[in-house]
């Protein structure tokens, strides 16, 4: 499907191309419950990021753009300079709520609070819609402790529960990575290269990769906690690269598998000396050098007064 929006003057795309599941574009059940593109706080970066609530805010979707240089669309009888392809994919709203639970927990020193007082953000007015999503009330216990006083429920962030929940997410992701045949190891497979070692991605490769993926949805501190919780050693991050260089990112530093230094043994030198000289070298060796000065004498510090 593609929608049309007119921004003739300011160079914004006039049209965008997106792929979305049907549930994202269901017609609204009531006139005021149309699907809504809105900015929310990205739980990983804390920056404004685009999300989509479907009709009646029953479900949350994240919006990602496939964006490469030098691409444009032909749409019907028009040309769209912006060659992006937008993907609208379902997302667990707990990730976004988690951000606010953690924040509230820090600010309120572990007080139990009603959720609608936690999930509030003056910069993002549609933030409370997160709580309207189906199943949020039912699944909030995965990341928070619950207290019921009278008819009202109060919640408090629980890191322990969250880590347990995230571990499940990691395991689900590992399953998905395997079933989609996604290469998770640090090696790049080349069809023509036959390695002496059998290339199999280890369980740790999968878990680390899945952890990296999940980390795109949680704050950095929590990501580190999760790594510990999963029993994976933290890797030293490589030195920051100057931003101009493009480079494939890997979770794991690439290390040489074979040790070539053993070939650099000292007998290499002697070998070389014994090796045959070329014809020209032989010819040079035969030259009568008597009466010739060594070249180094020309550079000696004290010029000898020769008489």
């Amino acid at each position, binding site marked *: 499907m593609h929608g049309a*929006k007119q921004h003739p003057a300011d160079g914004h*795309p006039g049209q*965008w191309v997106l792929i979305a599941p049907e549930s994202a574009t269901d017609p609204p059940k009531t006139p005021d419950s149309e699907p809504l*593109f809105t*900015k929310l706080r*990205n739980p990983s*970066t804390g*920056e*404004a*990021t*685009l999300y989509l609530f479907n009709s009646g805010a029953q479900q949350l979707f*994240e*919006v*990602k*753009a*496939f*964006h*490469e*240089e*030098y691409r444009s669309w032909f749409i019907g009888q028009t*040309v769209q300079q912006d060659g992006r392809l*937008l*993907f609208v994919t379902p997302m667990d709203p707990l990730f976004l709520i988690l951000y606010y639970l953690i924040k509230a927990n820090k600010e309120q020193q572990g007080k139990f609070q009603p959720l609608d007082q936690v999930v509030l953000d003056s910069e993002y007015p549609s933030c409370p819609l997160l709580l309207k999503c189906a199943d949020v009330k039912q699944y909030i216990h995965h990341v928070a402790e619950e207290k019921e006083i009278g008819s009202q429920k109060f919640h408090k962030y629980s890191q322990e529960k969250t880590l347990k929940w995230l571990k499940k997410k990691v395991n689900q992701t590992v399953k998905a990575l395997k079933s989609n045949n*996604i290469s998770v190891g640090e090696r790049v497979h080349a069809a023509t290269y036959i390695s002496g070692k059998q290339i199999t991605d280890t369980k740790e490769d999968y878990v680390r*990769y899945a952890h*990296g*993926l999940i*980390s*795109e949805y949680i704050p*950095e501190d929590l990501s580190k906690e999760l790594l510990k919780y999963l029993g994976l050693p933290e890797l030293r991050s490589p030195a*920051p690269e*100057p*931003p*101009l*260089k*493009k480079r*494939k*990112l*890997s*979770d794991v530093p690439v290390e040489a598998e074979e040790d070539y230094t053993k070939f650099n043994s000292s007998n290499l030198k002697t070998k070389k000396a014994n090796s045959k000289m070329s014809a020209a070298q032989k010819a040079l060796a035969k030259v009568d050098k008597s009466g010739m000065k060594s070249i180094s004498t020309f550079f000696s510090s004290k010029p000898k007064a020769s008489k």
Partner: protein
Amino acid sequence: MGVPPVTPISQGAVRGPLPSQTPPSPAMALARLERDPAGAGRFGSAVPPPCRHRPCALGVDEAGRGPVLGPMVYGICYCPVEKLEELEALGVADSKTLSEGERERRFGLLEAASDILGWALHVLPPDHISACMQQRAKYNLNELSHDTAVGLIQFALDSGVQVAEVFVDTVGPAEKYEAKLRQRFPGLEVTVRPKADGLFPVVSAASICAKVARDRAVKHWKFVEDLEDIDRDYGSGYPNDPKTKEWLRRHLEPVFGFPQFVRFSWGTAQELLQRRGVPIKWADEDPKQDPTAPPSVLSYFARTPARRPPHRFFHERSLRPLAEL
């Protein structure tokens, strides 16, 4: 060839006897150009029987190398070496010195000599020329020309012509071209000369074939684009012709450029596209910065971004979050 003599053709040229079964005449075969000028590709006459067992001379020439419009046509003509005099007697000459009407007339003579003279043509449509010259691995016009010539010579050999000598009007430096052809066809006597179409009758014949074919192809060109009543008043088609330039200006579409009839790879066309067309960037041109160049010294002092880089899953797939639509 113990065939009884047949009435000489109307032009009264000195000719040998016709075989009882005449192969399809060039005019008939050229009808193919009138049906589908762009898709004609490579085609040729039936091989005259003498050419199958007598050593033959073969001439190669081209027509339509310079124009910014229309196809380029490569032609070969061949006949038994001992019949070269007969061919010369037909009065073939460098096609450029002839008027269009005169070329058609001489072509008629060649056509009538199909008992000794065979030919083949290769039509390179303008879009093919554009594509060759502008593809990622550049393939220039000289290479394209050389390879087309080689293809036609091979085509004659494959058709059973006893080619012994090859005469070629040169494209680029003659010595290099000659060496290239010698290497490709070690058994053949190869002569590459500038202006060969004026020196060797068999090249003149090829030149007339190519030129006539090119004229037909241009005349009957079918524009693949849905252009209602496109005017064909484009002059000579050469880039320096003011009429041609004016036609190009009139038929420039800002997004798509020109109809396929135009060779996009020509400087004239490119200059117009750059000035009047929508700017288009391709991945393999105008790199913003040489990626191998060392990074600016300033980049080492820039504040490193606090954010972690996106996970390689997203990075490898060029997926990024959006701030707004």
